[in-house]
Each structure stands twice: as structure tokens, then as C-alpha cells.
């Protein structure tokens, strides 16, 4: 274990996760007004209606896949009678399908961002950075899977990366496990860490407020004048510029 490994697999994950958690807390308290999907559907619907569901359903499947692959220990699935081969085939097939959907959706969304005039103008530098990191993470993840499993003989990340992942949360990072993983997996993990670190500062925060509560709350919400709740402390100015043609 050298110093670089220690920094990459023993320290960086904690930095990224700390920023992820504290960043969300800070953003929620400071900038509730900025906490939105900033939907661009008013400008354009046709491409969005294909790209956005494709991307979102894909990415949610990918997230689920990661939970399954990284969090659930191999011994558990084996105890449940799932053999390595079976697991592997299912994971690779589902993972590739989800990954391809996500990537295709993302491609449509980025194409739309770039080519539809009003959407392009409404794209901030922050959005661009977010798209770059999102795309990089996705491409690396998908290529790691494809290279290792389809072209190569298969790579059982559940004996290296997954235990490392869990060890991070146990505050006993097993750095050597990750240091020995193939390069593409390492790069994917690093770009994901970077993505988590910028997450709270981008529009991706909308994921954390996914409106699950809607399923159970009564339709009509009554609220008294004085039950305001805490509001963001940011003196929100966005949206209060005087009207005028958008600046390019």
C-alpha cells in the first residue's frame, strides 16, 4: 500500500461522502429556493419525453443494481442459493441494459441541451459540469463492465470492490482490495466520488426530495398562515432580474 492508494481509497471516499452529506444539509438550509429540477419542459417536450424517462428509469435501475452489487455481500446471495454464474449473468445482462438505456437517455438529453435554442440558453455552467461528470461516470462504469465481462473472462468485483465499499462505511477501509482492482473500475469509482462531491451543488439535489410522500398524503393540503416552517437563508435573487432578452 503506497501513499497514493491511501489517498485514493482511504481518504478520498471520506472527503467525497462528507461533502455529499454536509453539502446537502447546507444547501437545504441555505438555498431551499434553488432546490428544484429546473424543468425545461416549457421550452421543449418532444425530445424530453423520450430522453428523460429513458435516462431516469435507466439510472434508477443502475442505482438499484449498485445497491445489490455493492451492499449485499456475496455470502448472502450464496446462502439464498444463487450461484455465482447465475448472479453474474443476471447482473451483467440487467446492468448492461440499464446502462445502455441511461446512456442513450443521457445522450438525447445532452443533444437536446445543445441543439434546442432556449434549452441551451437555460443551461448553466454548473449544468455543463454536472453533465460532463455524469457522462464520464456512466461511460466508465459501462465500459468497465463490458470490457471485463463481455470481452474479458469476467471479473468478480464482489470479492474486491464490494468488500472495500462496505469497509469504507465500517470506517475500516481495506485499501489493498481496491488498489488491486482493474484500472477501469478504479477510474469509475473515482469519477463517481467526484460526482458525489459536486452533487449537492448541482440540480441533481432533486433526487433527494423525490416525492414519495405523495402516495400517502391527502390530495388537498390545508395550511395555516403561521405554519411556515424554516425557509432557506439565501437571499434568493434568481428570478428577480428585470425582463430582457437572455444574454448569451
Amino acid at each position, binding site marked *: 500500500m503506497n501513499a497514493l492508494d491511501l489517498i485514493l481509497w482511504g481518504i478520498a471516499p471520506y472527503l467525497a461522502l462528507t461533502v455529499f452529506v454536509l453539502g446537502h444539509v447546507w444547501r437545504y438550509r441555505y438555498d431551499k429556493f434553488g432546490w428544484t429540477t*429546473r*424543468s425545461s*419542459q416549457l421550452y421543449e417536450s418532444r425530445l424530453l419525453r423520450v430522453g428523460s424517462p429513458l435516462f431516469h428509469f435507466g439510472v434508477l435501475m443502475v442505482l438499484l443494481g449498485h445497491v445489490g452489487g455493492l451492499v449485499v455481500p456475496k455470502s448472502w446471495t450464496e446462502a439464498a442459493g444463487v450461484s455465482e454464474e447465475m448472479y453474474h449473468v443476471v447482473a451483467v445482462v440487467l446492468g448492461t441494459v440499464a446502462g445502455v438505456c441511461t446512456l442513450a437517455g443521457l445522450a438525447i438529453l445532452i443533444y437536446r441541451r445543445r441543439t434546442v435554442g432556449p434549452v441551451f440558453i437555460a443551461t448553466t455552467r454548473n449544468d455543463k459540469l454536472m453533465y460532463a461528470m455524469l457522462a464520464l461516470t456512466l461511460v466508465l462504469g459501462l465500459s468497465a463492465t463490458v470490457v471485463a465481462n463481455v470481452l474479458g473472462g469476467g471479473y468478480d468485483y464482489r470479492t474486491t470492490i464490494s468488500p472495500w465499499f462496505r469497509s469504507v462505511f465500517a470506517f475500516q477501509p481495506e485499501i489493498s482490495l481496491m488498489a488491486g482492482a482493474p484500472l477501469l473500475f478504479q477510474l469509475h469509482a473515482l469519477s463517481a466520488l467526484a460526482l458525489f462531491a459536486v452533487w449537492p451543488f448541482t440540480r441533481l439535489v432533486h433526487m433527494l426530495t423525490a416525492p414519495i410522500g405523495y402516495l400517502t398524503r391527502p390530495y388537498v393540503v390545508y395550511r*395555516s398562515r403561521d405554519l*411556515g416552517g424554516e425557509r432557506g437563508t439565501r437571499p434568493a*435573487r434568481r*428570478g428577480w432580474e428585470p425582463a430582457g432578452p437572455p444574454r448569451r
Partner: protein
Amino acid sequence: MTRVMAQLAMVMNLDKCIGCHTCSVTCKQTWTNRAGTEYVWFNNVETRPGQGYPRTYQDQEKWQGGWELDRRGRLRLKAGGRLRKLLTIFANPVMPSIQDYYEPWTYDYDRLFSAPVQDSTPVARPRSLISGEPTKITWSANWDDNLAGGPELAPSDPILKRMSEQVTLDFERAFMFYLPRICEHCLNPSCVASCPSGAMYKRSEDGIVLVDQDRCRGWRMCVTGCPYKKVYFNHKTGKAEKCTFCYPRVEVGLPTVCSETCVGRLRYLGVLLYDADRVTEAATVPDEKDLFEAHKNVLLDPNDPDVVAAARRDGIPEDWLEAARRSPIHKLIFDFGVALPLHPEFRTLPMVWYIPPLSPVVDALANTGHDGEEAGNLFGAIDALRIPVEYLAELFTAGDPEPVRAVLRRLAAMRSYMRRINLGRPRKESIATAVGMTGEKIEEMHRLLAIAAYDERYVIPKAHAEQGARLEELATGCSLDYEGGPGMSGPFGEASGRPRPVAVETFHALKERQESGALVDPEERAGRVNLLNWDGKGLPDGLFPNRKKES
């Protein structure tokens, strides 16, 4: 009677609307003169027949707004229930695009000054406020104003489409009127029901429907949910905004800006009491034509001692009960029976009602050379002229002509009864009894409708501090809270720290700031007129530049 609640409501007397759009402009100046809300008209005035704003919004087969009954007769959102909403949240299947409203624009005014000397006069070309590109203006919030483009545009009116072909043709010659519209502040608001994050709410004290800007996450389902298309999406902030019923004004007893500035003085504001537990039941009656009556049944009589007792039990303050007894809205709906709800068939139980216009009938009558003020003629015409009545019925009573006819007959009776008085002839009680009223009542109605004294039009009780823990309107979270104006300051100078909520006190601070001139970026003050704290007397602050003080 189980749960009494109070509701601020409005009635508009359409006969008096001259279509001047003052209400729209003053509303815009107050609430939506910002980037991102260029296309947003909390108040708009549409010519009927016409397509409305956004185009053809009334066609719910297309726009899926409001509620409907499912096969088992239960109420459900027309655009789909909770699960369906969440599954289609990534791209809303029926959201109107900016083209369904219009692409807002400005002009290259600068060219008028910066163009080099040349033979031809320089032109300020239109430029889209959405894409920033030069644009061709092909539609606006009022493109079909006064039946402009009538034969081409009016046939797309969803109401006309529901009427028969032959009617359409006659009708273009026969009649036109204006329909000013704001949010209906519905008793059963489908916008609130459609909001996945629960950011939209109905205020329990006064029934005003608001969007909490801090909780809105931009899922933009409310835009689809509202059948009147009165929730707009601010494309700069990514949050929904809607008519606020000028809550900072009505909380201190001032009428809304649209009412205050209405040239025709046709808007009435007042309190209604209703039974919140009967709302769903009323919205669920099977036959659309019964919705109007069912809606009226939800509203309670403020003079009934049982109602008063229940209202006290439910914490409605005395002055609100007093205001409910004096409410012009209650009088217009119940005592005079001339106000009707807009599109009850959307099942949201709207709370901005209308007195349908008699003028189309009078005009048609006068065109045929008859005396349009004579009761007999008018009654006959109301019965004979199927077209205006059918159209009005599609707007106000889900197609049932009888209630519309009854209202028009009352208005006609008032007209001829009062004319006789004007001409110095004896009062003719039989005109009043023919429409189930008394002469006295007709004169009272005439006073409210024609003389329309300020304090009879607006009976607005002030908000109660003791109902809320704090005096300032914290919960309301409307867009105005974010203005740099109302006294924000903090450790890092102006505009740092916590935003202060909107309240009367902060309006005074705003006023001082506007007048003092110091320490404020002149860029920021340019073109900002604040009508919100204008009481209708004198000039609004900031409408004209401050006089330079001689030093």
C-alpha cells in the same frame, strides 16, 4: 354541519367589462414583471368567443385538467392518480409548451439610438425573450382580442366546438363579450392535489391557494392539474407561480390590485362560509348539470344561528362572521341569485363567480329595431335567442340553459324597472314579481351593481394576528418574498442574511427605500413600480422618476 371554513371570493359583473386590460397590466406590474414570468398573466382578459389563454385551455380532453368521475363514480384527477403521476414525472405527458401560450418578446430599442446616420428610419426589431433570437410575432396573450381574426380563430374556441355548426355562423355576427380571469381559488383545487411535493396549499384562514416557493421542486404537475391553466411555470427559477389573491393586500383589508384598478368597477370581494366536509361530496355529484346547485349547497348562510355557532366553534373570528353577513358575494349568489361559477364541470368548485352579460341580448334586440330596455321584449328575446344563452351556459352551468336564463331575466327586469324610475314613471312591481323578486330588492341589487360603492363592493376583513403566532405572513411563501426590496440586510450588507417575509411593515420600508434614493443601485430601481402598497389614492410610488431635489 361539521367543519366551517372561510373563503375569500370574487364576483365579476361581465356586463360592465370594457376589455381595457387595465387589471391584467396592473397585476403584471405588481407580480410578474420579472424575467421568467414574461408570459405569465395571473389576470388575463379574453374575448369570447375566442381561444382563451393559453390557447384552447378549456378543452380538457386535450389538457387533462381538473377532476373527473371514474367508472365507479369516485372523484379522481383527470390527468391520472398518484401512481400515474409519479411514473410520468420525468416528462409530463400533457404540459402546455411556451408556444401554447406565446413566445414573449421585446424590441431592440437600442438600435433606435445606436444606428448610424442613414436615409431610412431605424427600426426596433422584435427579439424573443425565450431564445434571445430575432423573432416574428405570431401570437400573444390577446391575439384574438375583440374577435380579431374571427372567422379563422374563433372556430377553435372549445366552447363553440361544443355547440352546433349552424349556431357558429350566426353567432359571429351576433355577439361578443369579455371574460377577465384570475385563479379561482377553488374549494377543491386540483392544482394542489396534483402537486407531488405538497408545496401548494389552501390557506385555512381565507382559502387562498398559494405555492410555497421554498418547497416547490419544479415537478410541474400543477400546471397540468389546473383546468383553468392558472398555475404558470417560471422558467428562470424552475418553480410554479400563481395568482396570490394579492394576499399581502387583502390581509390588511385592501382589495386585490385587479379589483382596485378595474375601470369598470365590476369586481366584488367578500367572505363566504362553507362546509369543508361537504366539498368532496359536492364535487362528486354524477350529473355535471347538478354541480352548480351542489356547489351552492356547500356554501353556508352566515345569518343562520346554527352556522354562526359552528363557525365560532371552528375558530372563525367575529369580524369575519360580520364580514360574511355583509358579503357582497353572498348577496350576489343567494339574495339576488345572479352570480354563476365558471366551468363547474371541472369539479374544482371555483370561487371566482360571474354575473353573465345581458348586453349580447340587448344588442341583438336593438339591432332588430326593438326597444332593448322594455321588459316584455327582453324576456322574449332571452327565451328566443338560443345562441348567447347556450354559449353562456357552456361557460357557467355545464350547458344547462335554465339558470343562465333565470339570471338574464333578473338583469333584464332590473334594467326596465330602473328605467321607468329614471324616466319618472311610476314603479311597476309586476316586472319584479315576474322574476321572483320585489321592487325593493331590485333597487337594492341596482345599488350594488350599478352604483357599486367602494365599501359595498369590497368587504374584506383583516387577517388576524392571533390566528397566527406571528404577525408577518410567514407561511405564504409566494414569489414576492424574494424581492430584494423588502428590507433585507445581514452581516454581509444588504441582501445577505435571512429574507424577511412580506408584510405591511416591510412595505413601508420599501417605500422609504424607493424615496430615499441613496445606497440603491439605480439599475435596480429603474422601471420598478410597486402597486402592492398603493391604496388607489394619488400616484403609485415609482411610477414616475423622483423629482431631483434642488441642492
